[in-house]
């Protein structure tokens, strides 16, 4: 089929937007893997927990400030309120991550990796039941955020027909990327985390508390998963099974980028997002297979992934 330049641009933007959501999920997974050496199978459920929690937080905050007011100020207040709700949601996931690491994972770091897999799978099932207990079986959603943000003109100003919420995701995702790289490259805490990733024993020898670093990293991973869940849920619904596909695709992303590499997760997520998007455009039946085909190709050509493992650079 013939693809017009406008459709090509919109499909690429669709892919980038999906890629940013994927990056927000995969970044937490890869940071935990790179530093704790733990493949967290419960990460998709943390993402899902973020989505469920966000619906309540969005409802509360919009209930307080009301629907978006007219004019630039009213719109700006609403967008900032949505951003605040996303951050609050992610912050709620911090103690969840802390609890998981301190109470469960810490006990089995010196055991074989299969124990970690079993444990995180158990946490996955527990979180699934917790969600069911709190929110029930049925899917839930928030309508106000998606429809309200879409009323703000953005792409229309340049003659494009593209939902403003997707633009919002791309912008916020860009800030998250910059923020994460800044954190790991420029801050003392970030450097300590990287040092621990490079040489755990040496970091301990110079006085770094690995327990504290590990807890911080796991909590950060949960924060990012919650953030991603809150950003992803407004155009769709929160469902009990929603954590499964993002977890699988995040594995694909971090294998493509290099296990534990933040830079690799970013490139891998955008690659998967855009190629999947173009696959749907040109050959729709290849939608599901496309990310796995890229992964298989990368494994054949560069088995350590595009950017190797976590360490000298983020």
């Amino acid at each position, binding site marked *: *089929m013939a*693809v*017009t330049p*406008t*459709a090509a641009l*919109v*499909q690429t933007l*669709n*892919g980038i*937007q*999906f890629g940013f959501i994927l990056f927000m999920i995969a970044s937490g997974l890869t940071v935990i893997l790179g530093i704790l050496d733990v493949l967290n199978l419960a990460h998709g459920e943390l993402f899902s927990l973020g989505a469920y929690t966000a619906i309540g937080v969005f409802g509360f905050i919009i209930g307080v400030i009301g629907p978006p007011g007219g004019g630039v100020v009213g719109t700006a207040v609403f967008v900032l309120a949505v951003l605040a709700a996303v951050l609050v949601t992610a912050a709620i996931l911090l103690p969840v991550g802390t609890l998981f690491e301190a109470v469960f994972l810490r006990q089995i770091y010196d055991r074989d990796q299969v124990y970690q897999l079993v444990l995180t799978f158990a946490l996955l099932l527990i979180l699934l039941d917790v969600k*069911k207990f709190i929110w029930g*079986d*049925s*899917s839930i*959603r928030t*309508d106000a955020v*998606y*429809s309200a943000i*879409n009323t703000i003109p953005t792409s229309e100003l340049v003659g494009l*027909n*593209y*939902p403003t*919420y*997707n633009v919002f995701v791309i912008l916020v995702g860009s800030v998250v990327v910059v923020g994460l790289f800044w954190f790991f490259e420029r801050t003392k805490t970030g450097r300590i985390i990287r040092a621990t990733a490079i040489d755990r024993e040496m970091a301990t020898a110079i006085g770094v508390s690995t327990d504290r670093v590990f807890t911080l990293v796991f909590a950060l991973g949960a924060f990012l998963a919650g953030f991603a869940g809150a950003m*992803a849920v407004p*155009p*769709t*619904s929160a*469902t*009990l*099974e*929603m954590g499964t*596909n993002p977890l699988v695709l995040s594995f694909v992303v971090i294998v493509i980028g290099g296990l534990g590499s933040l830079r690799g997760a970013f490139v891998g997520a955008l690659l998967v997002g855009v190629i*999947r*998007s173009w696959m*749907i*455009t040109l050959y*729709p*039946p290849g*939608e*599901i297979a496309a990310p796995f085909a890229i992964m298989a190709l990368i494994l054949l050509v560069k088995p350590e992934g595009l950017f190797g493992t976590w360490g000298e650079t983020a």
Partner: protein
Amino acid sequence: MDSTATSDHDNGGIGRRQLLSAVGGSAVAAALAGCSTLLSDGETADQGGQSGDEISDEPIQAGLLTFTRGAPGVLGIQAQRGAELAVQRINEAGGVGGQREIELDVVNEGSNPLDSYNQFIEEGKEVTFGPISSGTHSQIAPEIEKNEIINVSTDGTVTTLYEETVPDPTYSFRFQNYDIMEVVTMAREAVERIGADNISTVAGVNPGYSFGEDEMRVFTQAIQKLTDAEIVYEGFPELGASDMSNHITSINNEEPDVTFSSLWGGDVTTFVRQANANDMFENTTVFGTTLYSAAGDVPGDALAGADIYSGSRNYYWGKPALGNWQPGRELFDAATQQEGVTVPTAHYMSGYGAVTAWATAVEKAIDLLGTYPSQEQIAQVLEGHGFFTPAGYHNMAEDHQGASNSFAGQMVYDDDLGAARLDDVNTYAATETAPPPGVTGSDWLDSWSA
């Protein structure tokens, strides 16, 4: 919405004996047809079928396989509530054969439906209902035949089930109109609404598994017989997909005259919301077989300005108008009292009708035999069995496939109802939408003259 109720107990002069005879001969049949209030003197509770001396009063253990959670639960719970209401009415009418109440065990169709079905059999269920999914149905249908325990499926409407998977079934029956019927309904509806001359391009967005592929294949065949349309795009998002924007952009790129969709449940809501945000309805008119399954889920602002026509399989609550049809009024009122039912959709009738088909067949068999029938005897009676529900008259054809009228109309949001409704509803007879018995769907469509 026309919600004027007729007066209760207005039987229009028909006598009790005549009424019982008309709906199948027993109070259970009358209750399931929604006519119990037309019986005089409150005699419904002890007027089951003619119970023979050998019928025990042991409850009938029945199982229902349906989706009870997640995006598919939007319609799976409808089927559950429909089945529960039918069971409640049977039990209140004295039970099957006037003696045997039904105990319904509901299990989530979920990720291991075959295991759940086998569990039902191990537990000694006398009858099973469900499933919802075509994929599940294709899995369990051969098992049903092997186990020789009757199943009346609520949905699982894949066309090839009785053509290829189980070509000569004995114990497997399907109540709801199947894929070819609902797809042909929507192909005819598209021609009716837009006109054959105005349909030159068609796109499709359908669920990425056997059901969606089956529906798109049949729609392509039907619409190309009715028009000169070219298929310009076919997308198959996976079940429960959170992002459909790529498919929507492709449709915007092609601007097809008609977009066909068999998305269902929560996927409809996601699709309609994202389509509206991408102004897709400015570029195409959507015709879908099961879009109305999300009637209670899809938000009003997403339907504003949307150009959508949906089928409603063999039941639409507003046709005939509730004020003119007391059984429909009572079903609607009872359904909307149940948890999780904003308005009863076709999937509600799937559950209700599957139970009704089986129970009325057993009652008929008891009348014939004077004793409780075996599985084989019930199966024989079910073949060609006619029965009433509040949706009207249904026939379980010799090929084990239910055949009923189909409904389709424009999907709009009703603020008073707090849900979507269908406007300007068209009714299509089964003879217009289903192949004759013994003819495959594909051969039937091939035989249409251009």
